């Protein structure tokens, strides 16, 4: 029997709306109808489980075919926790990013900046038993996009996490402390709550910085949690919180 304790409601303002008008691509893609709140059944409480044997780790994006990527080498370390502060162990994180010039190794990216044959544009890392992860990469470059005149995306690394259940799936982006483009970026600013926005900014950490090798950045991720104690009174609480 699965634990069907409901997911804790999201905290107002800490997630972007679908219809974030400042980000033009939302205009024809954001649903108009209200979402239908579903109770937490086995479908939402459970989710795919990934093992390193089937989905091998790629934790160093700076080496391809014996060559080394151009750019500022970085190590990124952090923890994956749930909203109860508990580590999420052995969970898969997928990452992808532009190279140091701001170009994705992707046919859809026509930005006039050089590709780097020695940069691995995507990786996969699993958290350890305490929810910690770490990978090595290069600092991604900023790149132009067509959302508005002279629009540039700040430096960022994309993250994809699954966590323990279908309801914990999240896609996010990690940004870098001190990036002047952050104050202009519609995707970052689609999150109404300033503190929630700022939690997407990785902290530079001299203690993580590897002497003579790479700058260190720390980025923790919190997945949705469920209330600590399951309901036991037999009543249906699934429609609460509307």
């Amino acid at each position: 029997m699965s634990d069907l304790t409901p997911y804790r409601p999201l905290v107002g303002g800490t997630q972007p709306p679908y219809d974030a008008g400042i980000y033009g691509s939302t205009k024809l893609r954001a649903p108009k109808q209200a979402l239908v709140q579903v109770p937490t059944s086995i479908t939402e409480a459970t989710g795919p489980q990934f093992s390193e044997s089937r989905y091998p780790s790629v934790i160093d994006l700076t080496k391809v075919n014996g060559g080394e990527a151009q750019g500022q080498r970085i190590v990124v370390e952090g923890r994956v926790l749930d909203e109860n502060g508990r580590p999420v162990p052995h969970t898969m994180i997928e990452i992808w990013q532009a190279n140091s010039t701001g170009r994705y190794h992707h046919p859809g990216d026509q930005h006039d900046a050089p590709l780097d044959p020695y940069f691995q544009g995507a990786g996969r890392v699993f958290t350890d038993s305490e929810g910690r992860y770490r990978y090595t990469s290069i600092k991604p470059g900023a790149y132009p996009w067509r959302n508005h005149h002279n629009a540039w995306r700040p430096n960022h690394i994309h993250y994809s996490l699954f966590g323990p259940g279908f309801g914990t799936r999240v896609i996010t982006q990690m940004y870098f402390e001190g990036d002047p483009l952050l104050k202009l970026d519609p995707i970052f600013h689609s999150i109404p709550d300033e503190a929630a926005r700022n939690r997407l900014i990785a902290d530079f950490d001299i203690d993580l910085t590897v002497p003579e090798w790479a700058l260190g950045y720390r980025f923790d991720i919190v997945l949705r949690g469920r209330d600590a104690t399951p309901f036991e009174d037999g009543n249906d609480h699934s429609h609460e919180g509307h």
Partner: protein
Amino acid sequence: MTLATPIATASQTIGPYWHLLPYKGWNDLTRFGATGDVITITGRIVDGAGDPVTDACVELWQPSPAADAHFDGFGRCASDAEGRFSFTTLRPGPVAGVHGAAGNVQQAPHVAITIMARGLMKALATRIYFEGDAGHDIDPVLNLIEDPARRATLIAKATGPAAYHLDMVLQGAGETVFFAI
């Protein structure tokens, strides 16, 4: 960055370049050797102008049949130039119902779908049920949707003995029902 009272990390769009993630072949859920009642599920995603959504990441999760060494219940598919996606998987069975008083009513067979794309700040969650299966009239999730026309947006048409098809509309007329979890 120590969080005294952790709040779930904000979602951001998957953007147009997520295909850098390795996914080829992930839309075949029998890829680890699963055998049994194999079905195909196809669909097409359009936006509020009726144009195909050509850069979506569509993921499928099913708790039934239960995961084992040959079946992990998960698939991922990139929508193509016409907005189409497809999965090959094992036919799901009914699963346990929801918590509480309605808990004795099983849920009709379904798969859970996540759609992520440029222009979607958060993943969209929906379900696919299958035409011809028993239990749609008493399914505790389908019954949350009062309008029969909206409920029908979750039920794939049978196009063959083991083939199903469902079109999805992100916005506007015929908009697919999406869920908050």
